[in-house]
C-alpha cells in the first residue's frame, strides 16, 4: 500500500525549500522512493515525431531527442499505460531497453505536453491503480515545475528587455504591489538602489518628487489631471522640462484579463530639444532680418515713385519720357509687391488662424469671380465643377482665400491664351479635395521637386509678362499645412498641371441646401 498522504506531505516539504531546476529533481526523487522504479523520465513533446527528455534519473541514457510515436500509441485512448512485458521500439530502446515493466502518464496541458514514464527491471509490487495515482500526483508537480521554469524565463527576458532600453521604464501593476522598473528609472526617480521591484507608494513618491522639480509644472499638472480623470488616457508629446534636462513622457494603460496597470516611459530629449531651440532661434533671427530689410527697401522705392510722379509737374515731357516714367512706375510697383509678399510670408508664422464654418461653394464662386477680368484679358475660360451637395468647411477664411487666390492666379499666369482653367471640388472618403487644373506647359519633374520652396526660379514663364515673386506656392504650402490640410501636385509636360488641396474629414460636413450669404475678406 502506498501512503499517499505521506507522499503529498513530502511534495509540500519540497515546495517550501526548492526552486528552479532542482525542484523537478526533488519531486522525482520522492516518486522513486515511494514507487520504487529504477528510472523516471519526464519527456516533453515538441512535435509528432520529436520529444525532448526534460528530466531523466539516468541522464546518460539515450539522446536528447526521441521519437515518441510509441508513447503516443500507448496513450492514444487512455492517458495512462502500464506494460508488463514492455518491448521498446528503436527510438526508446536506449531509454527503456532494460525494463520489463513500464508505466506512463500522458500530460496534455497548455503549459506542458508530454509523458511521465517510469520503468522497473521486474514486476513492481504495486497495483496498476496505485501506480496511476502516484503518476497523476507527480504529473501535477511536473506542471508546477514547468510553470515555474516559464515564469523564471519570462522574468529573465523582461529583466533583459528593461535593461537594454535607454528610456526610464516604469510598469505599474494595479492589482498587486509589485511594480517593475529599470535602472534608468531607478536613477531618475531617485529610488532605493538595487530594488527593481519597488512598492507603489515609493514609486508615487518618486514620480511626485520628479514632477515637483520640473520648471513647467502647470503644464504637467494639466495633463496629469486629465490622466486622473480618464483611466484610458494615453499621452501625446508630454514634455517635462527641468533646469538640466528635458523629458518626453509617454504613458499608456494596459488592460488585459490578466494584467491591469500602466506603463510609463521617460525619454531624455534634452539634446534634441536644445538643437530644436537653436534652430528656431536662428530661424527667428533670419525672419527678423528679412522684415527689417524689406521695410528698409520699401522706403527708397516709395521715394523714387514719388520723384517719378513729380516729374511731369516740372515741365512738359515728350512721349518717350512719359513711357519711361510709366515703365519705371510699373517696375517700382512690382518691387513693392515683391517686398509685400516677403513681409507677408514672414508674418505667416506668427499669424493666428480664425477658424469658422465657411460655406464652400459661395466662397469659391466669389474668389473665382474676382479673376474674371484677368481671365478675359487672356481669353481663358474659368470653370467651376463640383460633384457634391453644399458643404461647410471649418477653416480660416482669410487663409483659404489666399490659397485659392495664389493657385488660380498661377494657373492664369502660366496658361497660354485661349485655354481653360478648372476649379474642381469633390468629396472622397469624407475628405474635401479642391483642385485647380490648368492647360499650361506643365512642370518638369526637376521643377516639381523645388516647387514649394521660396524664391525658386522655375523653367515655366508667365505667358503675358505677368510678375512673379517666387513666393506664391511656398505661401500656399505653408498656409495649407497650417490649416491642417495637405497639397499635392500632378503635372504632365505640355498637357497641364493640377494642384490639389486635401482637407481631412474632420473639417468637412454637409451644409444646408439653402445658401446663406456670407462675407469674405
Amino acid at each position: 500500500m502506498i501512503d499517499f498522504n505521506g507522499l503529498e506531505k513530502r511534495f509540500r516539504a519540497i515546495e517550501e525549500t526548492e526552486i528552479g531546476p532542482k525542484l523537478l529533481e526533488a519531486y522525482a526523487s520522492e516518486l522513486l522512493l515511494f514507487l520504487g522504479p529504477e528510472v523516471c523520465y519526464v519527456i516533453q513533446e515538441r512535435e509528432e515525431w520529436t520529444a525532448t527528455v526534460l528530466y531523466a534519473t539516468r541522464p546518460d541514457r539515450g539522446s536528447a531527442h526521441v521519437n515518441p510515436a510509441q508513447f503516443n500509441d500507448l496513450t492514444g485512448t487512455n492517458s495512462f499505460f502500464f506494460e508488463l512485458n514492455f518491448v521498446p521500439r528503436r527510438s526508446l530502446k536506449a531509454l527503456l531497453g532494460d525494463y520489463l515493466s513500464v508505466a506512463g502518464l500522458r500530460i496534455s496541458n497548455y503549459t506542458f505536453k508530454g509523458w511521465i514514464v517510469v520503468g522497473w527491471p521486474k514486476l513492481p509490487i504495486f497495483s496498476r491503480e496505485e501506480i496511476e495515482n502516484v503518476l497523476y500526483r507527480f504529473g501535477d508537480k511536473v506542471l508546477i515545475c514547468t510553470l515555474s521554469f516559464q515564469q523564471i524565463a519570462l522574468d529573465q527576458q523582461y529583466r533583459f528587455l528593461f535593461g537594454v532600453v535607454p528610456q526610464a521604464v516604469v510598469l505599474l501593476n494595479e492589482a498587486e504591489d509589485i511594480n517593475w522598473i529599470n535602472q534608468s528609472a531607478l536613477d531618475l526617480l531617485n529610488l532605493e538602489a538595487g530594488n527593481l521591484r519597488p512598492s507603489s507608494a515609493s514609486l508615487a513618491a518618486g514620480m511626485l518628487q520628479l514632477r515637483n522639480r520640473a520648471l513647467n509644472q502647470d503644464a504637467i499638472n494639466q495633463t496629469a489631471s486629465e490622466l486622473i480623470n480618464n483611466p484610458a488616457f494615453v499621452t501625446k508629446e508630454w514634455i517635462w522640462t527641468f533646469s538640466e534636462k528635458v523629458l518626453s513622457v509617454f504613458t499608456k494603460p494596459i488592460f488585459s484579463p490578466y494584467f491591469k496597470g500602466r506603463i510609463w516611459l521617460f525619454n531624455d530629449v534634452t539634446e534634441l530639444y536644445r538643437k530644436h531651440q537653436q534652430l528656431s532661434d536662428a530661424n527667428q533671427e533670419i525672419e527678423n532680418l528679412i522684415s527689417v530689410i524689406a521695410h528698409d527697401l520699401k522706403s527708397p522705392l516709395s521715394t523714387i515713385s514719388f520723384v517719378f510722379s513729380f516729374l511731369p509737374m516740372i515741365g512738359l515731357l515728350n512721349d518717350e519720357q512719359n513711357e519711361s516714367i510709366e515703365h519705371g512706375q510699373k517696375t517700382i510697383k512690382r518691387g513693392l509687391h515683391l517686398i509685400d509678399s516677403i513681409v507677408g510670408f514672414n508674418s505667416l508664422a506668427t499669424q493666428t488662424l480664425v477658424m469658422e464654418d465657411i460655406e464652400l461653394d459661395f466662397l469659391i464662386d466669389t474668389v473665382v469671380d474676382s479673376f474674371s477680368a484677368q481671365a478675359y484679358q487672356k481669353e481663358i475660360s474659368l470653370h467651376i465643377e463640383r460633384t457634391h451637395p453644399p458643404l461647410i468647411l471649418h477653416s480660416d477664411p482669410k487663409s483659404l482665400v489666399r490659397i485659392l487666390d495664389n493657385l488660380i492666379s498661377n494657373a492664369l499666369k502660366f496658361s497660354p491664351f485661349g485655354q481653360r482653367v478648372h476649379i474642381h471640388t469633390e468629396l472622397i472618403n469624407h475628405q474635401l479635395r479642391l483642385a485647380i487644373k490648368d492647360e499650361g506647359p506643365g512642370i518638369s519633374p526637376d521643377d516639381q521637386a523645388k516647387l514649394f520652396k521660396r524664391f525658386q526660379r522655375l523653367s515655366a514663364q508667365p505667358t503675358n509678362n505677368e510678375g512673379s515673386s517666387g513666393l506664391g506656392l511656398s505661401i500656399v504650402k505653408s498656409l495649407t499645412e497650417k490649416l491642417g490640410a495637405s497639397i499635392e501636385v500632378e503635372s504632365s509636360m505640355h498637357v497641364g498641371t493640377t494642384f490639389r488641396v486635401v482637407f481631412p474629414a474632420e473639417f468637412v460636413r454637409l451644409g444646408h441646401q439653402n445658401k446663406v450669404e456670407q462675407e469674405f475678406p
Partner: protein
Amino acid sequence: MSVAARNNVQLLGNLLSDKTIICAHGFGTDQRAWLEVVAAFTDEYKVVLFDYVGANDKTVPFFTRWKYKHLHAYASDILDIIEELGLQNITFIGHSAGGMSGALAAIAEPDWFSRLVLLNASPCYLNQDGYVGGFSTTVLDELFAQMETNFHAWASGFAPMVMANPDRPHLANAFSSTLSAMRPDVALAIAKVIFYSDHRLDIGQLSHPTLLIQAQEDVAVPHEVGYFLEKHIPHSTLIFLDTQGHLPHISDASQVIRAIKPFLK
C-alpha cells in the same frame, strides 16, 4: 500524420520482394535525383525513395533548427521510416551527406541493414590535422556568406561547379533549380550542418559491406576522402568512376548502375 508523409516516402518496384533498396539524396536535390538509377532495380527490389526534411516545399514545414543540427537527426529520420514501414534486408544507397546519414543509421541499428553504397560521400569536409577534406574554414565562411547574401545567385554559380559536365548545361540548370527551390534559411542551416560535420571517428563502427563510389574531379569530395573512407570502413571497396562531378547518379546513371549491380549479387 505518418513518418512516411513527413519524409514524402514513395514505394516503387517489386513490392512483394523481401529485398529493399533505400535511396537517400544529397544536399540540393531530392528523391527525383534517383529516378534513372532505381529503374535498373525495380524488377528485383522493393525501392524506397524519400526526401530529407528541408529538401523541398513538401518537407520544409517539418524543419526545426533545434532538431536538425546534426546528421544524426537525419539518420534518426531514416530509422523512423524503416521502422514505420517494417523494412528488412536493406541495401542503403546514399549520395553525399545523404549517404553519411545512412551510415550513421546503420551504425545505430546494424541489424536493420545488409549493405551500403555510398556515392561521393564524405565524413568531413574541412581540412584539418593533415586530413584533406577539400575545404578550408576561409572557403566555407565565404561560401556561407554568399549563400546568406544572395541565395539564388549563389545557387546558380554553385550548381555548374558541383555538377561539372559543362558540355551538358541542362544538368547544372536542373540541379540549380532544385537547389534554388530550397528555402534559403533552411538551405543555409543544412549546408552548415553538412560542411561542419565530422564523422571520421564514427565510420570505423560501420560493420556492413560497403561500396564506395567516387567520381573523378568532384569539387566537394576530393580523392583523398575516398581513400580515407576505404581505409577506415572495415568492409569497404572503393571504385572510381570515369565521370566528372559530384552528382554521377544524375550525370552518368548508367556508370553508377554498372558499379552497383555486381556489389548486390
